[in-house]
């Protein structure tokens, strides 16, 4: 968490410093030279404004779309674990339509009930938490704030743990995870627009269409009996992948960079 805050703060500082410098340059360049005092002023020329800034996911949720026989899934929710930078390039000067690129850390997860009597509970009450962290590069199209695109997610970490034993985590073998592709749809709502930049609230839904694991590598993808033993009737083709959906609510501050 501390490293995330440090990285986010440094991102804000770096992009802010650069944006401030650009805005000062822009003001300097528009200062009328002394020789044009007697010439009628031309209308201000509209600039091509690139927007760059940090993003921070406030709250995220996810759930697996499929479970192996003998298991169940539930939605899980987590906070402040998605962060990065974004670039918005309008298709034309002043346009609200453009291409957006998000680069940063993305997380996805689910709650899994490993088997019916897990944790000596009845009626599927026991569960574990699965959380996967990716370095994500996501090109998107933004049409008046409506965004759609895809994310290419390089695995960084996968962890599974019991909710009451969070200091005793199982770290997934990273070699079993693959570059996961998500397809995404969402929106960026403009809540504060100034000369310096735009603050937006971002809402994004993702479907991790390729799954998170290589084929046959998901440790919770194996069919089991009610007490967690391997299902003797299962075949290798019964091992499922983890294909979650996730939603994210976050903020981004998009500094205006006039070119």
């Amino acid at each position: 968490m501390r490293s995330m805050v440090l990285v986010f703060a440094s991102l804000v500082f770096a992009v802010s410093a650069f944006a401030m410098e650009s805005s000062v340059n822009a003001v300097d360049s528009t200062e009328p030279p002394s020789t044009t005092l007697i010439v009628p002023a031309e209308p201000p020329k509209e600039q091509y404004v690139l927007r760059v800034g940090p993003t921070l996911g406030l709250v995220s949720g996810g759930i697996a779309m499929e479970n192996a026989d003998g298991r169940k899934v539930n939605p899980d929710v987590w906070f402040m674990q998605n962060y990065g930078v974004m670039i918005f390039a309008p298709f034309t000067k002043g346009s609200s339509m453009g291409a957006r690129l998000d680069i940063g850390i993305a997380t996805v997860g689910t709650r899994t009930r490993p088997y019916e009597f897990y944790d000596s509970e009845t009626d599927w009450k026991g569960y574990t938490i699965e959380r996967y962290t990716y370095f994500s590069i996501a090109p998107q199209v933004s049409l008046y704030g409506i965004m759609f695109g895809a994310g290419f997610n390089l695995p960084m970490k996968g962890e599974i743990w019991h909710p009451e034993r969070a200091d005793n985590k199982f770290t997934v073998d990273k070699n079993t995870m693959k570059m996961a592709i998500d397809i995404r749809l969402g929106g960026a709502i403009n809540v504060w627009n100034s000369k310096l930049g735009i603050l937006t609230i971002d809402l994004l839904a993702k479907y991790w269409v390729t799954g998170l694991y290589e084929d046959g590598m998901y440790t919770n993808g194996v069919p089991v009996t009610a007490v967690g033993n391997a299902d003797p009737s299962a075949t290798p083709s019964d091992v499922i992948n983890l294909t979650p959906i996730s939603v994210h609510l976050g903020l981004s501050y998009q500094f205006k960079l006039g070119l």
Partner: protein
Amino acid sequence: MKMMTILSMCVLALFVTSCEDGPTGPHPSLELSLIYDAPPVTGILVEVSGKMIVQGPVVTMTSTALPKDSIFSNEIHLSTANININSTPTLRLVFKTLPTGPGSFAFTAATIVPGAGTFVPTSDQGAFVSISGNLYAPVSGTITITEVRKNGEDIIGYSGYVNGKLKAMFPRGFTPSIAQPFPPGFNIASPTLVGETLTLHSAVFKTRSPSRVRPTNPQ
């Protein structure tokens, strides 16, 4: 150019914040003690000494219960049956000397030594897994002992978990013949493991047998 430099630095900063390999840690779905209901009977208690999740090119991802255990002079042995034959799934944990307290014990990569008319993989510390008729020897990983139960100077039980990579000496299905006594890649002058890799994603154990062992060379 300046913007690209800043962005590149940001991307690098993001990427190095956390990158972790695995597998490490106990898999939370590997429960050794479980109470369940099978109406009309309720509160049925089942206990096993160990469970492991393994997977490899010729071993489907599976969770195997290991109800039997024993502790020897420098080994902890967990198995599905009292009598082991080649096809019996077993997990054998070998130590340089039996641990006398909690700690982590890194695998020593197995080497191949001549045995009785053949070659045998050996390691002074690590996990050996026998499953689906093949023996896998340690390559890399860690045995973590979380509890040592003692009665005076004697050790009567262990709890812990294991994660790691193992490898078979020969590829599965290889049958020696006069024309080809060893599989391709196996050099008898400098023998190495040339079989399939097995990932021991996680094994959790808590010995239950009435063992009583005194380490000969306490750590």
